[in-house]
């Protein structure tokens, strides 16, 4: 039998034992932790570093997201960092020598009320001023781009138009993680799975090491990339983060022939849909209202999301829900991430990407690596510092950025 099976593919990374010390340790082996390690090694020559992951590589939100990539955010600070990320997505498959199926099939954000229409048009204007490709579509143009969308006005929230970003799209999330992991490994980064950080060693207010279930590791610098568990790690280190962790769910249908050519998101009825390369319809909804670390949410959230999907896409009525799952998303009150220094010396934090951080992965990695290596923020993440909650310079993308995924 065995000789009938194809040969096992090459392993993409080693599984080394942790060394006793590193120049920097990244906590969390999701997309952001891996991208950070990659840019630390590539841009800053820091190769004596490790990524510590408590479970398996990229098994957290990185494995659970609906992979939407776009940069049509309202505010200048957000447009700058997300557009930079999008430009990196455009070159990364070549740079990482890995085709992770980045498909720029466009993203549509539907408007269902007059308020939506005004806000959307304003956002299109703001996007254009920031060099982000954006268009306003009337319902007929919406239908031309996505024929399966119901634009009749006899539904509860008729489609009154949409914003469209042609360069936006989706990518294969697992492959993105593997692409970064392989390059990290090639550059000498140790990726250590099943390694849970349980505490920090400090010399006064300076972090000097991490305690893990695989022993103590000394390190000069620590970068936290723990998404939903950021508050738990911050508490171990002795500071607080303005983050609330919520369950966020998504689901897929069985495989279908290609029927859905783009990505459609609706903030108002709260559903977002794309069709994966293999053919599953991939749909996500809103967060569960309560705080939760359970990686599962309530079924009524899924029911609500399905009702919206079927009204917008009558053709989906006979599709079946094949699998549902949940992740833990780290939300902030202004729906913008936190990337920067912390009250603990030599400890840095990248978190708060909440429901929409997959698209930001390359920019998070680039700017966070810069911050860790130099001790000061990159110009792109400077506005996203923890101190904005004290200065009041919030970057309020709630609602402003269409749906926050």
């Amino acid at each position, binding site marked *: 039998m065995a000789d009938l099976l194809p040969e096992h593919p090459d392993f993409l990374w080693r599984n080394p034992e942790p060394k006793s010390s590193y120049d920097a340790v990244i906590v969390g082996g999701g997309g952001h932790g891996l991208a950070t390690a990659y840019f630390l090694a590539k841009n800053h020559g820091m190769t004596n570093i490790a990524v510590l992951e408590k479970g398996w590589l990229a098994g957290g939100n990185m494995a659970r997201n609906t992979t939407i990539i776009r940069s049509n955010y309202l505010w200048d600070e957000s447009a700058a960092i997300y557009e930079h990320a999008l430009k990196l997505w455009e070159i990364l498959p070549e740079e990482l020598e890995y085709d992770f199926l980045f498909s720029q099939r466009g993203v549509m954000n539907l408007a269902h009320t007059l308020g939506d229409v005004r806000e959307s048009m304003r956002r299109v204007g703001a996007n254009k001023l920031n060099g982000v490709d954006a268009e306003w579509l009337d319902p007929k143009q919406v239908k031309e781009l996505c024929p399966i969308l119901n634009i009749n006005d006899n539904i509860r929230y008729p489609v009154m138009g949409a914003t469209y970003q042609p360069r936006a799209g989706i990518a294969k999330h697992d492959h993105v993680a593997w692409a970064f992991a392989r390059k990290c490994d090639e550059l000498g980064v140790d990726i250590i799975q099943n390694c849970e950080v349980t505490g920090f060693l400090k010399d006064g207010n300076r972090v000097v090491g991490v305690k893990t279930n695989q022993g103590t590791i000394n390190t000069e610098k620590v970068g936290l990339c723990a998404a939903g*568990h950021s508050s738990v790690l911050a508490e171990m280190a002795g500071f607080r983060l303005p983050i609330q962790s919520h369950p966020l769910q998504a689901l897929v249908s069985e495989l279908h022939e290609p029927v859905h050519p783009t990505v459609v998101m609706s903030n108002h009825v709260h559903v977002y849909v794309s069709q994966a390369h293999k053919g599953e319809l991939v749909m996500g909804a809103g967060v569960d209202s309560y705080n939760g670390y359970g990686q599962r949410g309530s079924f009524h959230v899924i029911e609500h999301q399905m009702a919206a999907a079927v009204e917008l896409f009558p053709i989906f009525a006979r599709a079946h829900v094949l699998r549902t799952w949940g992740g833990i998303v780290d939300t902030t009150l202004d729906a913008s991430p936190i990337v920067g220094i912390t009250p603990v010396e030599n400890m840095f934090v990248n978190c708060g990407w909440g429901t929409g951080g997959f698209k930001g992965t390359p920019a998070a990695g680039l700017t966070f690596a810069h911050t860790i290596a130099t001790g000061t923020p990159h110009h792109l993440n400077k506005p996203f510092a923890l101190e904005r909650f004290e200065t009041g310079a919030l970057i309020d993308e709630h609602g402003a950025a269409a749906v926050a995924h």
Partner: protein
Amino acid sequence: MLLISCPNCGSRDETEFHYGGQAHVAYPENPNELNDREWAEFLFYRDNTKGAFAERWLHSTGCRQWFNMLRDTVTYEIQAVYAMGTPRPAAAPPAAESGTASTAPDSTTTGTAGPSIAATSTATGTASPSTTAPEGATK
């Protein structure tokens, strides 16, 4: 779907309720004396506990009253329901109750007492006023 035991109405579906975030966050006693850091803490920083968490809920489509609840944020098990203005009860020992995440005991003794008007001090500060609107209900 959580089954939540409203102190006034009994067990109802989660969809009848509105989440209000961390409980026992008191309005600053001397607001004029707060520095920026302290304001930031009051406005934007809330505990994000992994485990037993005291939080506020509003029975918005029922009696429209706020109350507090102690819930495990990992198992989602509801450990106690209690009136606003009363101190946080001790977290139930993990194995004491066989209830699953979705079953809130109807007979939670800690939750059936009438709301106390007196401002009872708690471990985290003074009692929270029962009329405050929820901060940061995430949408």
